[in-house]
């Protein structure tokens, strides 16, 4: 069993509290992605699991062993680094064989494992080359190969795709996913790219300021963000936020902002009774907005002025001014609008989210 348990870990540097009590249970064979902006503690957390940083407080268990005081070599993990960290003076073969040699595997076993890994990754032709003779994508494959030959309990990935160009990144993302499906090794993956997180992770951990904001399956984060930060971080283009005041009229709740009056739909309204007369934040994803049709109620739509229309072919991204701020909407590709045109955008009621103004928690 190679589950990883993280219990209330802290990392303090002299004058900086990088990780402030993170707890996480990673199941055997699970692919968990830590995502967040730079400086959120995700890489530090990963490095503590790897044993490259000491743990100031708390416990990390791999399998059922507390590894706090084990050196990296005894944790039975493999790590893929952002800059690949290939040994420049060794051939691809020797790079991949190094970990096995250090662990005193016999030559024939090393050869078998390296060739097998090279075969899986399609780098068999490059085994005799030096890392500097390889392209970025090939180097990344070698780094992956070096991790998989050891057949470790846990894979750790530290932003492995950040140094690749956009096209290659998408390709390697798919390969990492396939690799995980094939090897089914417990994996922890750190990235700042929410698309990578959503596509790769069985579960995604959103972090900010050394704290976990939310843990969940990708769609869970997308559909039920725990707070305003997660709502804004997951999804592209990002969710729109608007400051509103909650008011009651005719027994119904309305969210009112400048030039906007939206009816709060029933299931949410039931939880918002106590907020009557108070400020709140309304959130709506661009894909839950559309050009208003005749059937759209006045309290489920609002007026907006088009600033920019970005034609992406499959959709059009509209940057509009409404309710005293900028709002982004993703509309059907057949829509034709001009800058400064006045339009009416309809809201899909299921997409409406509300957050408390003070704690920013979801309501």
């Amino acid at each position, binding site marked *: 069993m190679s589950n990883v348990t993280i219990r209330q870990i802290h990392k303090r540097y002299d004058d900086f509290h990088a990780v402030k009590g993170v707890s996480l249970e990673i199941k055997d064979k699970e692919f968990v992605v830590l995502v967040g902006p730079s400086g959120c503690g995700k890489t530090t957390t990963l490095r503590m699991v*790897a*044993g*490259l940083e000491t743990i100031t407080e708390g416990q990390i268990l791999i399998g059922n062993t507390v590894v706090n005081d084990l*050196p*990296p*070599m005894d*944790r039975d*993990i*493999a*790590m893929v*680094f*952002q*800059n*690949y*960290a*290939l*040994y*420049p*003076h060794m051939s691809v073969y020797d790079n991949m064989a*190094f*970990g096995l040699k*250090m*662990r005193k595997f016999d030559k024939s076993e090393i050869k078998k494992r390296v060739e097998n890994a090279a075969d899986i990754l399609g780098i068999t032709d490059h085994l005799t080359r030096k*890392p*500097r003779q390889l392209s970025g994508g090939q*180097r990344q494959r070698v780094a992956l190969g*070096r991790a998989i030959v*050891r057949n470790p309990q846990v894979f750790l990935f530290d932003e492995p795709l950040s140094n690749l160009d956009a096209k290659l990144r998408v390709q390697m993302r798919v390969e990492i996913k396939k690799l995980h499906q094939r090897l089914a090794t417990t994996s922890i993956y750190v990235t700042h790219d929410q698309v990578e997180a959503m596509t790769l992770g069985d579960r995604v951990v959103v972090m900010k300021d050394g704290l976990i904001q939310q843990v969940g399956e990708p769609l869970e984060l997308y559909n039920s963000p725990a707070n305003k930060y997660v709502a804004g971080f997951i999804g592209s283009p990002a969710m729109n936020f608007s400051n509103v005041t909650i008011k009651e009229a005719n027994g119904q709740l309305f969210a009112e902002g400048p030039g906007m009056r939206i009816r709060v739909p029933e299931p949410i309204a039931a939880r918002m009774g106590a907020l009557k007369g108070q400020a709140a934040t309304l959130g709506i994803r661009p894909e839950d907005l559309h050009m208003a049709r005749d059937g759209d109620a006045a309290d489920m739509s609002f007026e907006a002025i088009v600033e920019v229309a970005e034609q992406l072919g499959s959709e059009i991204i509209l940057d509009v001014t409404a309710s005293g701020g900028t709002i982004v909407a993703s509309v059907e590709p057949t829509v034709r609008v001009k800058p400064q045109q006045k339009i009416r955008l309809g809201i899909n009621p299921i997409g409406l989210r509300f957050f408390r103004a003070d704690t920013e928690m979801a309501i």
Partner: protein
Amino acid sequence: MIEGAKWRRWVFFRLPVAIFLLFLLFPFYWMVITTFRPDSELYIPWKNPRYKPLWTWNPTTVHLHYLNGETTFWLWMWNTTFIAVVATAISLTCGVLAGYALSRLNFKMAGLLGTGIFVTYLVPQTLLFIPLAEIIRAYNIGDTPWALILTYPTFLIPFVTWLMMGFFKSIPKELEECARIDGATRWQAMVYIIIPVAIPGILSAMIFAFTLSWNEFIYALVFLSSPEQKTVPVGVVSELIRGDVFFWGPLMAGALLGSIPVAIAYSFFVEHYVSGLTGSVKG
């Protein structure tokens, strides 16, 4: 090609390089020509119409024979080689390990210690030889090669340490972290990964340390006294200048032969040496 680019290249690149080369190489040329010039030409007064300082039509090897037969030159060469090689080996061992420790192990006071080592390098030898002479006398190693082998590291170790510190810092720390995850101990990661990657830097440090010990003058002059213990720089100067008489021919012959090993060392490692100074290890 841009109009006029050719003459620009001559004026701003080739000509300055040529002047610079001439300036640099002239002393060597002077050394060579004096070595092979007979005494009868060497001691002609300046104003004599037969005075041709830059060329000779009567080359002779008499100065080389003199150096070979009348002095202990080959002993000096051996002394210098022995001292330079052992002092360099000691300094490299200590300096590489110290440089690694100061740049990689984050222990308390590492920065302060690094600065401290650098400061010792700044103490001029002309001051340091006074207390060192006292120490050498106390340990009774005056007039032996060990007087120099043990004192040269006082300036070589700080030098190598600082050079290697900079070089180690240019090696991504992920290489080492990866090795340690791969199953290497800190020591194995250093031996199998970091040191091989740092070879260009180590070679530069080695050449520098070797040259500095080979050319060192003050300590050799002060700590050695008998002719058969001397090093080339001191031997040539002290044995071939007697009072105010300069034996220019053998003197220059000694200087010429003495600079050959250094020249060979440089040319042999020149490529590594350049990449060592320009640093950068790409992953």
